[in-house]
């Protein structure tokens, strides 16, 4: 009996000793994996997420998984969409293989926490770029992939043709999004008395709308167009013309990791610039033989733009071969090549009346 007492006494002593020393050590391994974008990466040439991803050999992409046109997984487990194509472009730039991506479905509530914890390398999840998120949450929005706006989809059979018709009616909305705020602001501005129904996940929101529990559902116009195709009777529903807010959708990374943020940012600009220069997946091999110095620099035939970033010098060629240019990506996922059929609108190039503008590759 007494022998056991002595042995038992040793256990808590060692536990406390281990805990004291572990306090300092345990946070750091978790720290380096989780936030290479932590404060240490900026001050010293420490480990960037770029190095972690390259050594891992695979990209981990946070997507939505339930939004047709942006990131959607079908019953065979295949991912498709604009955000998914962006991840594939990034994987092509890093590993010359667009399939070296692991997708993680994230709800709108958990997406930023999961990114901050380091469980995904970036978010390509139709996330709106706002001041609050960029500054207050420790995140970095790299460059706009898609200029969207918040809209309202209504049930035509309920006789609703404009926002004011929603007075006294219910509007379904998903929690955790800027949508709730914008809806409240708009309705307050127009002095419309409505009732919000806030659901936790997107499927429940649209299920309630489809069943007629609420007369309107609000979200980004691209999301509404995508979801409309999955409703039982799409012709009964109409996305109103009104645009209630600006929703620039951009990929997100963690703060203080410029090397990784640069790689993600210039992948976005590669797609836009290729569109501007008229380089497609089909003609990129031909364009490699071009004598135009702008194209030669862009495709890595001349200069060291890729190498300076930590990527292979012809990373733009790899991206274009994998997914095409921005126009091709757009049309394939949300444009004329898809069921959603959303016109490019302000997502056209700057010299065509839209907002997509890439800084020069020089």
């Amino acid at each position, binding site marked *: 009996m007494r022998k056991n007492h002595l042995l038992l006494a040793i256990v808590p002593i060692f536990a406390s000793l281990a*805990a004291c020393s572990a306090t300092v050590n345990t946070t750091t391994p978790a720290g380096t994996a989780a936030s290479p974008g932590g404060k240490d990466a900026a001050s010293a040439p420490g480990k960037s997420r770029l190095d972690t991803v390259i050594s891992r050999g695979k990209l981990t992409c946070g997507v939505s998984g339930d939004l047709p046109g942006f990131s959607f997984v079908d019953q065979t487990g295949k991912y498709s969409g604009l955000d998914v194509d962006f991840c594939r472009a990034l994987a092509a730039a890093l590993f010359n293989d667009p399939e070296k991506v692991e997708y993680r479905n994230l709800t709108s509530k958990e997406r930023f926490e999961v990114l901050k914890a380091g469980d995904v390398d970036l978010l390509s999840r139709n996330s709106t770029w706002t001041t609050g998120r960029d500054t207050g949450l*420790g995140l970095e929005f790299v460059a706009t992939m898609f200029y969207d706006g918040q809209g309202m989809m209504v049930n035509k059979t309920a006789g609703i043709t404009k926002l004011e018709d929603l007075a006294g009616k219910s509007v379904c909305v998903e929690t955790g999004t800027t949508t709730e705020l914008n*809806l409240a602001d708009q309705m307050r501005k127009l002095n419309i008395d409505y009732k919000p*129904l*806030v659901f936790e996940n997107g499927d429940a929101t649209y299920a*309630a709308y489809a069943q*007629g*529990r609420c007369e309107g559902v609000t979200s980004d116009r691209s999301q509404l167009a995508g979801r409309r195709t999955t409703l039982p009777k799409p012709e009964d529903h109409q996305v109103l013309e009104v645009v209630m807010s600006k929703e620039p959708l951009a990929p997100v990374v963690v703060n203080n990791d410029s090397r990784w943020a640069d790689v993600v940012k210039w992948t976005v600009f590669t797609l836009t610039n290729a569109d501007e220069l008229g380089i497609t997946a089909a003609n990129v091999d031909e364009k490699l033989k071009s004598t135009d110095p702008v194209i030669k620099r862009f495709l890595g035939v001349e200069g060291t733009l890729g190498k300076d970033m930590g990527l292979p010098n012809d990373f733009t060629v790899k991206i274009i071969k994998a997914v095409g240019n921005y126009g091709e990506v757009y049309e394939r996922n949300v444009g004329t090549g898809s069921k959603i059929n959303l016109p490019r609108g302000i997502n056209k190039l700057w010299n065509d009346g839209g907002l997509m503008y890439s800084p020069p590759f020089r």
Partner: protein
Amino acid sequence: MSTTKVPTKVPLWRDDRFWKITFQILAIITVLVIADFFLFNLRLNMAKRGSLFGFDFLGSQASFDIGEYLIPFQSQDAYGRAFLVGVLNSLKVMIIGVILTTILGVSVGIARFSNNWLVQKTVSTYVDLFRNTPILLQLLFWYFAVFSNLPKIENQIAVLGSFYISNRGLALPWLGDSPTAWSSLLGLIALAIAAFFVWQQRIKIMVEQGASGQNLLLVLLGMGVVALILFIFGLQWTFPVFTAGNKLNGGLSLSAEYCSLLLGLVFYTGAFVSEIVRAGIQSVAKGQWEAAKALGLNSGILMRLVIFPQALRVMIPPLTSEYLNLCKNSSLAIAIAYPDVYAVSSTILNQTGRAIEIVLMIMATYLLINLIIALAMNFLNSSVQIKER
């Protein structure tokens, strides 16, 4: 010749008391060290990510609307007020839920012992079905399969001209909101309490003095008439009236979200409560039943005065757990768009990003509510125990 020996002092390492105290101290130190480790880790990581711990965000403007509220709320009000609205919505579900669950559970539990084959089979099917399916599925069933399929507001069903059912929810007549109505309500409650004491007194004098009890019966009848008058006229009932555009004026409107949450929780927890009631009744010795029947008591008095009070002693501790389960399960409201405290806090969390503070607030709220319920039930428990000499 003394044979008593002077007791030698026991060395410290063989002294039982020393070891008992030492281990308790070591256990406390271990717990404190582990807790400190986690808190230190938390502070370190929060500082690394640039988040600060503090509750000052509760004063900022909420900028979102809430679907239903017991106290007035607008999007310009603060986050703190939004949280309070959520707490009140949760309490609305919890309190009514506990009352209805008790009624349903006790009735079903007692009905299990009925001699009617149909009643017994219905009850056992109900219990088996509702106990063995997950609560979330039941809530989704009530909301999407039952309430969403009710007729739309334009074609709503009107029962007795005053109760309206539609896919938006129920509309019932309700008390007015004037001083007369409130004072009538208080008067009714006071009358009920007074009537209870008069009744007790009447039984007492009939038993002890053999009096006829006629006078007190007349008093009670008089109180009944006054109560009836107060009920009909004093409470100033308002009836739901639908204006153009299907806006509701007057009456009480219970949204479909509230109703499905309430019904889902009540039916689910009621199945568990009925089994607890059945266990309690079965725990009463068979001799009690036989003795009561031998005395000629009919089944109503038998259950009410002999069996149930004895069953209550066994039932109350598990019943407390079921009430606490009901309160915690009410946090599933977010799946069906009812703005309870968890749903509202979820929105606040998304807008402000202050995960740790808000989770602490939610946990503290549920903990407080549950501790109060547990306290009340423990008090009830000690009051029904057999007082032994």
